[in-house]
């Protein structure tokens, strides 16, 4: 029995109530424990990554009930990677939130943050479809709190929209799970895989409905067109460090698609043929297009970053939707890249927002313009998939993996076209925000852009700016490391893909061969 598997869930689950109960009135201690928790999560994630790298699939049967009757957690390479990404993202984000003082602008930031981590890691680790729903809800409700953290009219209105749309998604999740259970009589994902293969032809219509509804649920989370509409306003109006953390949440959707549609409704399952890739690929391409167009058209830096997140999800999902080992390996590499890149862009956007407001118009220069401009340049390079950062490698991987697909020319054209529009858009924004501010003509005018609907009375600005910058540099370093060590990284993602496309190992590990 390997208790490490549940550690990433239990740690925040215990830490958060502790923060609420004992440290409610001690901000500094909250910070210490929150950071310590994130570091702890990182350590746990590292352990899990090391354990998973052997290729052995480990399970953890909660309540000691055998699968498929109880809930089971599964540690394979994919879940280890995703938990690792979460931990690697969490630390810089929480440091930034502390450094920027965002955590003081409302109550319970750190507790909600820990709960959010619990939800995300739980979703990555669980091997039970309904338990996945529960963790989705945990991460969502924590995200509702984080999204509206600090209040403010616009943010709250955006919050209503965010919650509404996600509640629709959660409802759909239940419809899907109900349908699947009603046909197959099970909830365990490995068991589902076994049973789906055995489904008699008289039940395929209903099973297909369940499969497609589930896909749509994940597509909402992953912000796939036409289910992505919730994202721009939500992310742009969330506290931007929170939006940075949300970079991992869209990945939860992508992860779930990968997991469910390789393990249960894999590309070889005849029953659900023609349901996934057929529409996901065009939808993903449109997602990328909409994201890129949004970047070019954005008037506000938060929104620009949000569309950046959408565009990167588009690229990612193009790779996912191909459902080949090569493409999946590429998708996973791109996942890591896009998590850091999107987070970085949001944090930089926050730095800009805090100093001069988010409008993409020239204004007098802000504090630390040079440094922020440089980091913006880096994040833009990453987001646009320009060399030398991992985005370019990821893009090449995706395109290379698409070589053998029928529509490869279209895919390439969309990816390259998307990159082009993104480049133009980011260059435009950067030039207006950072360069044009030096133009005497504009400095003179000094139109103080009043943000009419800002968060109420922003607390002391940036208590530890050094910490904020440090956390940004951590993300940059992450991107750099992902680039430099692209070889080992792609090897690992290749291993994940190999594991995903051999679902029998997973099934055997979970069901211990009992059901075979």
């Amino acid at each position, binding site marked *: 029995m390997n208790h490490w598997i549940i550690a990433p869930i239990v740690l925040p689950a215990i830490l958060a109530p502790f923060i609420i109960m004992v440290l409610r009135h001690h901000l500094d201690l909250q910070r210490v424990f929150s950071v310590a928790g994130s570091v702890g999560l990182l350590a746990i994630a590292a352990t899990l990554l090391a354990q998973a790298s052997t290729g052995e699939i480990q399970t953890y049967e909660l309540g000691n009930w055998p699968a498929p009757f109880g809930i089971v957690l599964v540690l394979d390479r994919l879940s280890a990677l995703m938990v690792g990404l979460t931990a690697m993202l969490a630390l810089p984000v929480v440091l930034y939130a502390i450094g920027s003082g965002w955590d003081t602008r409302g109550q319970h930031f750190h507790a909600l943050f820990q709960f959010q981590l619990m939800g995300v890691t739980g979703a990555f680790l669980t091997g039970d479809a*309904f338990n996945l729903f*529960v963790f989705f*809800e945990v991460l*969502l*409700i924590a995200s*509702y*709190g984080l999204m*509206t953290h600090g*209040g*403010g*009219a*616009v943010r*709250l*209105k*955006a*919050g*209503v*929209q965010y*919650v*509404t749309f996600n*509640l*629709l998604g*959660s*409802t759909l999740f*239940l*419809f899907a*799970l*109900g*349908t699947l*259970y*009603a046909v197959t009589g099970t*909830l365990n994902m490995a068991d589902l895989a076994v049973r789906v293969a055995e489904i008699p032809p008289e039940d395929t219509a209903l099973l297909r409905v369940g499969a497609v509804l589930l896909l749509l649920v994940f597509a909402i989370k992953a912000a796939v067109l036409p289910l992505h509409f919730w994202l721009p*306003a939500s992310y742009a*109006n969330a506290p931007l460090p929170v939006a940075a953390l949300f970079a991992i949440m869209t990945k939860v959707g992508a992860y779930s698609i990968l997991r469910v549609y390789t393990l249960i409704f894999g590309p070889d399952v005849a029953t659900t043929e023609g349901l996934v890739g057929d529409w996901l690929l065009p939808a993903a391409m449109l997602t990328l297009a909409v994201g890129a167009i949004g970047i070019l058209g*954005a*008037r*506000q830096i938060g929104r620009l970053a949000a569309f950046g997140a959408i565009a990167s999800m588009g690229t990612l999902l193009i790779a996912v939707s191909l459902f080949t080992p090569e493409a999946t390996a590429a998708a996973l590499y791109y996942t890591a890249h896009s998590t850091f890149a999107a987070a970085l862009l949001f944090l930089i956007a926050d730095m800009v927002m805090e100093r001069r407001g988010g*409008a*993409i*118009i*020239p204004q007098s220069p802000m504090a630390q313009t040079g440094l922020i401009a440089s980091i913006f340049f880096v994040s833009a390079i990453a987001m646009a998939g320009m060399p030398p950062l991992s985005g370019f490698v990821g893009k090449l991987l995706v395109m290379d993996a698409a070589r053998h697909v029928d529509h490869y020319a279209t895919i390439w054209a969309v990816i390259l076209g998307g990159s082009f529009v993104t480049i133009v858009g980011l260059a*435009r924004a950067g*030039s*207006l925000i950072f360069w*044009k501010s030096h133009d005497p003509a504009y400095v003179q005018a000094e139109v103080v*852009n009043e943000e*009419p*609907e800002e968060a109420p009375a922003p607390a002391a600005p940036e208590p530890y700016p050094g910490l904020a910058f440090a956390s940004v540099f951590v993300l940059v370093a992450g991107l750099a490391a992902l680039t430099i060590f692209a070889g080992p990284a792609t090897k690992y993602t290749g291993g994940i893909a190999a594991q995903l496309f051999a679902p029998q190992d997973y099934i055997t590990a979970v069901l211990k061969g009992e059901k075979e």
Partner: protein
Amino acid sequence: MEALFASAVGVLTAAGIFLILRRRTFPVILGLSLLTYAVNAFLFATGRLALNAPPVLNNYKEVAYTDPLPQALVLTAIVISFGMTAVIVMIALSAYLSSKTDHIDLPLAEEAGEDE
């Protein structure tokens, strides 16, 4: 019976969706509540309908039990959607008090983005 049940689920879903498509927060919340009823009923019925067969074990006689699992799932779902509803009510109220309007739409702020 099944027809009654299914049609009720359908009516609740339709009404819920219709209200969710309104443009004020309050009807949307009402719609979400209705939709929650619908989905809970849906999920419950995936264990198939049964009369007088509650899944409470009876030591004295051999009786049929209905499928307990969907019931447990619905219980979880009810609780979760309760939490969600509470949160959206609160956010909607806060949004209303902060902006003095309960329009659910969030038109793009007219921020002047200037091009070169």
